[in-house]
């Protein structure tokens, strides 16, 4: 189990390093317009061919995937940070503040994040700053809820009570005992949130509501190559393959991580009572 997690993490990091190396070696060709080689097929000079502006498609896709990943990483980190902060304090303090906060989060959650982002981007206009701002406006709510529930469960455990009896301050309880035990949950939700942000950034840029179309970004590239859908399908395929590789690896990794944490939990719960090995032989959880 742990071996598989290591393998997938290694593959993911190598993919990211390869993309970043390519973006360092080849310069961004976003503003180069070459009328001579418009829409050429794949060849030795241009591995993925060229697009409708005569730009090398390989370099554009590499820069695009770098930009998408960076954007998604920024948005995810902001969302994780805010959700973690609000979730922990709301769960730990509890009482009236908690219940007011949860009603607000409920209301935010009932409007899809994607809908809020695209309507605000349409009204205020696109741009890098606006994209990040509007995606992280309500993206943290789900996580805040999850973290808050975890904190409430851990808060009522016996060892926290023991700490209170010993006279430890609530600051020490929170930062030395509760927060470290949430980190395992966070690592799993970080990945699923990251995939979600990649999807929503690609979709928003595909709709033409995000950052300007000159900047290489996978959604922009796909929406450009949509025009040549039937004559040049490879222009659509290459960016899709990049998205596919990343989200596939991330999905498998998140599956493995969840199984790993579940196994840890279930070992504690069940192993005391009965030996379940006869079921495990047939229906083991990969």
């Amino acid at each position, binding site marked *: 189990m742990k071996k598989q997690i290591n393998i997938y993490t290694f593959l993911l990091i190598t993919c990211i390093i390869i993309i970043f190396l390519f973006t360092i070696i080849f310069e961004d060709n976003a503003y180069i317009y070459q009328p001579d080689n418009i829409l050429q097929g794949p060849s030795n000079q241009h591995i993925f061919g060229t697009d409708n502006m005569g730009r090398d498609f390989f370099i554009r896709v590499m820069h695009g995937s770098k930009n998408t990943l960076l954007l998604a990483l920024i948005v995810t980190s902001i969302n994780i940070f805010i959700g973690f902060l609000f979730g922990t304090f709301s769960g730990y303090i509890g009482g009236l503040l908690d219940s007011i906060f949860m009603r607000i989060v*409920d209301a935010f959650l009932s409007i899809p994040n994607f809908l809020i982002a695209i309507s605000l981007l349409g009204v205020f206009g696109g741009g890098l700053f606006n994209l990040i701002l509007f995606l992280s406006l309500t993206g943290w709510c789900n996580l805040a809820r999850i973290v808050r529930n975890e904190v409430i469960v851990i808060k009522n455990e016996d060892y926290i009570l023991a700490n209170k009896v010993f006279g430890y301050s609530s600051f020490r309880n929170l930062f030395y005992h509760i927060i470290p035990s949430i980190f395992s949950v966070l690592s799993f939700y970080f990945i699923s949130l990251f995939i979600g942000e990649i999807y929503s950034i690609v979709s928003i840029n595909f709709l033409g509501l995000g950052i300007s179309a000159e900047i290489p970004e996978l959604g922009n590239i796909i929406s450009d190559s949509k025009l040549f859908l039937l004559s040049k399908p490879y222009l659509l395929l290459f960016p899709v393959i990049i998205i596919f590789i990343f989200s596939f690896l991330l999905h498998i990794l998140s599956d493995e991580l969840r199984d790993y944490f579940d196994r840890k939990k279930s070992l504690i719960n069940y192993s005391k009572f009965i030996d379940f090995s006869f079921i495990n032989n047939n229906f083991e959880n990969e």
Partner: protein
Amino acid sequence: MIKRFIFSVVSLFIVLIISFLLNESSPKDYSVFFGGTNLNILTKEAVINIDKRYNLDKDIYQRFSIWFMNFISGNFGKSMVTNREIKIEFTVRFFPTFIIAVFSIFLSIIISIFLSILSVISKKIDFIIRVFSNILISIPIFIIFLLILIFVSPLIPSLPIIWDDNFKNYILPISIMSIYNATFISRILRNKLLEVIHKEYFVAALSRGNSFFQALIKHAFINCITTLISISGIRFIGLLSGLIIIESIFSIPGIGSYIYEAILNRDLPVIQFYIAFIGIFVIIIHLLVDVVIYFLNPKNSEEIFS
């Protein structure tokens, strides 16, 4: 139970406030919308008239109370682009989206039940299903539609791609959406089933002489129905926001393409109404899911309604 109803009414009110504030925070240049920025066609009186029409001369509390009372009484205002009632336009547009969403969620529930039971029964099938579903959910849904447009629809010429209000139009979106959502639902349902067959009551059911399949249907699956319902509720909402892109690509005249057109035209009353509508819709669905779960399994009620 009563607490849950009160909570959802409070959330409803907050959603209305949010949708009003989102509109309020936008630059309210209605006169620019009608007159254009550079041309300055509008006289000062016309600008004042436009401001009066959209209540811009009043302060924010009065605007909110006017909008709120109108919204509750079913008067949603007029679209700024077409100058027609939003209510009428919206009800016309609501039908295709509703059909696609409801049919695909029902189909996906049926498919996911089959898939999850298969994957619990046999480990090889489970592996195949897992790989397939991981491949499918690793591609955003609108790209799947584009890929099918290129590679599959030339093979089946009888399925129309362009919308012409025929029942054949619904086949392609419904089938793809249902398979795509079924992968999401079946992943979670499978995990829940695997969790349940490790429980003691399942072992007890096996030791009473039930065959594995019987015990699976009678004891394990029945206990997963609440999970199934709550997940399908969540997916139903995800499907609605996924339909925004798909409808705008394939020019399906549903509410998704309606909001997309409104966003491109900066049609503020429509956006405001749509956000409020979706918020209310989602809250009602969550409430329905919770009520159904409460009646199916009252034991869990304390968890849900806390």
